[in-house]
């Protein structure tokens, strides 16, 4: 009987996770009513899911529908749970895993774009270099005086990340990012 009684020190059975996490982008269509964003975010924090990026805005004013785009990280099993848990929320109309959808369409990943405002301060060579690099990245100058620029840059997350890291030694003072907006390629709607 002693074999039965090896204590494990816990009242719960915890299995080790072996699957590798993936990054997926989800589009969630919701009724734009008070608290709906809190429901979505609360679900993620309450169940221990990750949010890498989140954007939300009303997209259909007549129907009061908002579209929430969430970039999340998890194992395929967890990602499937996230989708189903989101679908349980009463004001949620639809949840589409854009990354899965892209795979079904034979594409690598969904179209994803982000916008960032990047404030860089400095004078002399650093300032010139910042402007030159901004042009290379097709960032627009939307505000400037003799001591600073504010660049507006749009593109893939990796491009924005790269731009910001390049600006760091050139006097990076402030960054604001919108988070990812995403949709699948092709003529079909969500």
């Amino acid at each position, binding site marked *: 009987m002693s074999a*039965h*009684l090896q204590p494990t020190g816990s009242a*719960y059975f915890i*299995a080790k996770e072996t699957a590798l996490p993936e990054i997926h982008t989800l589009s969630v269509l919701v009724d734009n009513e008070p*608290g709906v964003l*809190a429901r979505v975010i609360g679900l993620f924090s309450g169940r221990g899911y990750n949010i890498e990026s989140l954007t939300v805005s009303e997209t259909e004013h007549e129907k009061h529908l908002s579209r929430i785009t969430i970039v999340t990280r998890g194992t395929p099993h967890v990602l499937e749970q996230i989708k189903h848990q989101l679908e349980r*929320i*009463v004001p949620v109309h639809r949840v589409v895993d854009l990354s899965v959808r892209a795979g079904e369409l034979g594409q690598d990943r969904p179209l994803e774009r982000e916008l960032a405002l990047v404030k860089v301060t400095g004078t002399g060579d650093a300032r010139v270099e910042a402007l030159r690099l901004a042009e290379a990245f097709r960032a627009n100058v939307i505000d400037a005086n003799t001591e600073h620029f504010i660049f507006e840059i749009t593109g893939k997350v990796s491009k924005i990340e790269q731009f910001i890291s390049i600006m760091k030694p050139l006097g990076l003072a402030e960054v604001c990012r919108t988070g990812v907006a995403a949709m699948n390629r092709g003529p079909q709607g969500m």
Partner: protein
Amino acid sequence: MTNRQEETGRREMTGAEMVVQALKDNGVKHLFGYPGGAVLPIYDELFQQDDVEHILVRHEQGAGHAAEGYARSTGKAGVMLVTSGPGATNAVTPLQDALMDSIPLVCITGQVPTPLIGSDAFQECDTVGITRPCTKHNWLVKDVNELAAIIHEAFHVATTGRPGPVVVDIPKDVQFAKGIYTPPQTAPRTSYQPKVQGDLDKIKAAVALMAEAKRPIIYSGGGVINSGAEASHLLRELVDLTGFPITSTLMGLGAYPAGGKNWVGMLGMHGTYEANMAMHDCDVMVCIGARFDDRITGRLNAFSPNSKKIHIDIDPSSINKNVRVDVPILGDVGHVLEDMVRLWRATAKADKKALYPWWEQIAKWRARDSLAYKNNADVIMPQFAIQRLYEASKGHDTYITTEVGQHQMWAAQHFGFEKPNRWMTSGGLGTMGYGLPAALGVQIAHPDALVIDIAGDASVQMTMQEMSTAVQYGAPIKIFILNNQYMGMVRQWQQLLHGNRLSHSYTEAMPDFVKLAEAYGGHGIRCEKPGDLDDAIAEMISVKKPVLFDCRVANLANCFPMIPSGKAHNEMLLPDEATDEAVANAIDAKGRELV
């Protein structure tokens, strides 16, 4: 008022009037509540009518559990009404309890007036914020003209799909304000469309799998009971047609009768040996309205390793959550079973002879007699007490509620349930203090029934105050306390996992439950000898008052069989291997290795 308005049910009234009217229009006969500043206008309306009876509890948690008991024993929504701030926070435990056990519960809370929200006003709390994760949905009503529609929607959301709790938070100024009342609408909101009909191809695949099974098992759960009486009826029909053995979760007891010939007992941590072994060794598992909870599965990577699994559930997030299944069927259990039974009749011929070897194997497991215990002539064994209670209750219209702990598991093991909706227990959340107020709720719904709370001495003290409510409403609930002076399940785990160091699991100062019953105006009974038990139980049943029955049981009895933590279904600890001494000694020797 114009005639046209009268015809459509639309008319002007105050928010408080709307609440009462909406309750009536949704068929509410009873609600459980506690008044306070922020709900006084609603209480004023309740005072002026007789259609909806209000049951005044002694603590808001009691109102919630009473409403849960009411809901589970009737299949209708339970309703509670509480004030803002502490009223709402006290409702949180029953809300989460109802969420985890899928109980339709409509909770109406008062809120401070709209202009004061966010000002830290007296008895203000962020009710929708606090209750968001413990409800299926909740609403803060800021416009009186939306109030009626929201209450109707609340009932709809609570009772359809996978049932659950909802909160409607109504600021006091909205209760006073006048607006247009709208009757319940048939058109629900577009985003909420639970799928009830199962995919026919999937059901066909399931039937084909079942027809080929050599070692099948049906594993049913609370979803069968939630789906309604017809679902239980269909489940019984399916079992008869297929000849499959059937086990059930704690929540599903009664959907298939304990006296049925295919019944192998409850499964899971404290389930029977035959049920768990059959789960482990089966080749086809049909999970109907259950969710592969961790108390059911044991060690996940050793859970029923060689079976094809069919899972019927109305909640897509329950499917493939803990256990990967081969045939997922999304839909209401009743609807899916109807299709399944029809398809089985049409296509599958049950070859019951093919199942003989499987039934022989099950008979061998059953012969281990895993629920056996050593009876004692001098001390009441808790299992014996439940068995005598069960025998005495036969012939009565009986409903059982429980608290949480050893007594709960013994009740599940030794009390036989023949019908659905007769067993009310806190399964998911494991709420000590659930049973007494739940019994009150059941008794309000079924005034002439025999309603027994099988309780533990520790749990029952958590909501003891509702004895006063039971006395006030003449609800003759029977609180059958298995009194061993310990938090028995806590102690059992301390013995198993913490080197028998019994840290704070012994109650050194126990109230005199007989005097306590009398102090409340109820009836108290104490029983200490096995020979006196039957007479004492007969007395309890015959008394037409709330009863506290102090049943003094063997203090150190433990609940077996048991799947120890981290073990699989086929690694159960059986009672003949686990005498109290053996358990304590084995753990003492291993104690130092503990994490």
